[in-house]
């Protein structure tokens, strides 16, 4: 059976160059970067080289880059660590409604501990409401965290405008760039962002590494206490192979961004046009133009996402969905909800995330398989019956 992997937002295959770069650190170069002997030196040098590469992806000072185990850990460190570091200045924190749970949940935890949290709404395309953001800023606001782009619906946030609103007020600005970093050039100096979260796996690196870059002089309270690794800001022995892989991935992401974007954009446009052209009652979710080049997310009316996912899987196609039925918590995607998409429509969520290994033939195969899958589910859908009867 033909196999087509269109769930690259969940995981990517590892590019050969990245794998090659990691291999010595899975065998002879096994040292601990904290050790003072030559094995330690080799591991430490490799981690520092990776630090340079990852920091330069966002044009940040390498000293400010803290390696973590994943994007989630980096977001936790940013939200809790930055907020707690500014506690004397104020008690108010602002996030957007479409942030990843690794931002929203730490914000909720801080709220339970006495912090005041404002969740800024987004419009129907998933863009942060800038007026509401401006209104939310107060004398005691110490931290604003707005993602650079949303991986679920692809919408790119107006970070420049957001930074403009926040700056000059003695408020820290953090951005979760996990979904954005491979596609969008981010320059912390130019934007005036104080902290950025990155994740290895969304840069075509391996799992098991993430990073938080923090501007020099910004107070950060460590969340993982132990040894003095990462300048005392994150304890625990570094995951050297993954960090080395992340470094290589960041280097490639910077060098090849434009060609990759163009490749992904062409595939994505082919997919979107094909789906819209072949299916009725289907909508692209997220912003039509300001979106990540690899993201094609839709809601397909009158059918449920998990059922689509299973039928596509039975024909070798891997996708994901933000429907309630596909989530372990049985709640439909908070991102789709925040965009004002009603629950029964959000049930038809389907996300195709393209990757560098995909081909036009992959997309053509999907476009051949998807319409009968949707037709089959609609033929057994009482909601579709109702719609047809009401339409007459």
């Amino acid at each position, binding site marked *: 059976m033909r196999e087509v992997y269109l769930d690259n937002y969940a995981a990517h295959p590892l590019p050969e160059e990245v794998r090659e770069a990691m291999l010595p650190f899975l065998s002879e170069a096994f040292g601990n970067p904290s050790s003072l002997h030559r094995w330690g030196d080799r591991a430490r040098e490799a981690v520092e080289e990776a630090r340079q590469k990852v920091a330069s992806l966002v044009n940040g000072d390498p000293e400010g880059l803290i390696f973590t185990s994943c994007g989630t850990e980096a977001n936790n460190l940013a939200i809790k660590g930055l907020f707690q570091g500014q506690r004397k200045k104020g008690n108010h924190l602002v996030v957007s409604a479409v942030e990843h749970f690794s931002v929203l949940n730490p914000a909720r935890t801080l709220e339970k501990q006495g912090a005041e949290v404002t969740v800024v709404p987004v419009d129907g395309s998933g863009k942060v409401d800038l007026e509401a953001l401006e209104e939310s800023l107060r004398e005691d606001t110490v931290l604003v965290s707005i993602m650079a782009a949303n991986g679920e619906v692809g919408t790119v946030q107006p970070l420049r405008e957001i930074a403009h609103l926040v700056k000059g007020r003695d408020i820290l600005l953090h951005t979760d760039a996990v979904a954005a970093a491979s596609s969008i050039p981010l320059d912390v100096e130019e934007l005036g962002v104080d902290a950025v979260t990155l994740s290895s796996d969304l840069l075509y690196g391996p799992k098991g590494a993430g990073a938080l870059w923090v501007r020099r002089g910004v107070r950060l309270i460590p969340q993982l206490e132990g040894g003095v690794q990462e300048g005392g800001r994150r304890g625990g022995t570094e995951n050297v192979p993954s960090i080395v892989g992340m470094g290589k991935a960041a280097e490639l992401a910077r060098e090849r961004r434009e060609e990759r974007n163009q490749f992904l954009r062409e595939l994505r446009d082919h997919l979107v046009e094909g789906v819209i052209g072949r299916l009725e009652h289907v909508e692209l979710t997220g912003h039509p133009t300001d979106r990540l080049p690899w993201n094609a997310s839709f809601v397909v009316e*009158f059918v449920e996402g998990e059922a689509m996912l299973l039928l596509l899987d039975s024909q070798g196609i891997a996708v994901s969905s933000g429907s*309630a*039925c596909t989530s372990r918590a049985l709640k439909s995607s908070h991102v789709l909800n925040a965009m004002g998409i009603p629950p029964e429509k959000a049930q038809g969520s389907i996300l195709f995330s393209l990757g560098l290994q995909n081909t036009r033939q992959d997309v053509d195969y999907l476009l051949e398989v998807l319409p009968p899958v949707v037709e089959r589910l609609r033929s057994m*859908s009482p909601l579709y019956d109702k719609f047809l009867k009401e339409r007459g």
Partner: protein
Amino acid sequence: MGMAMYSDKVMEHFMNPRNVGEIEDADGIGEVGNPVCGDMMTFYIKVDDQGRLSDVKYKTFGCGAAIAVSSMISEMAKGKTLEEALKITREDVAQELGGLPKNKMHCSNLGADALHKAIQDYLERRKKGGESHGR
């Protein structure tokens, strides 16, 4: 194939659902919806002179489990007396399917409710319309 969360039996029913459809001149119709996620099932029944379910069909909007549950219960109920069919529980359906994932036990397992509703609908129609109704 993926989806290790479902038993083989659930997947088999999901991939090849039995008795899907609508009965134009149904004797009873039962509709249940899950207000949280919007899942929906509509069951249609035909009742014969012996008071047995001669036909059971359904339409379902929902996940793999919801579709498999509908298919399984339609098979279980067909040919049964109304009394017997009313005794089929959610747990019975789940058991026949070789189990359902914990988190799907309540949300997707609406088939028994929809079937029972269709039978109630039949009984109420008969009460209203007298013996002559329908047949």
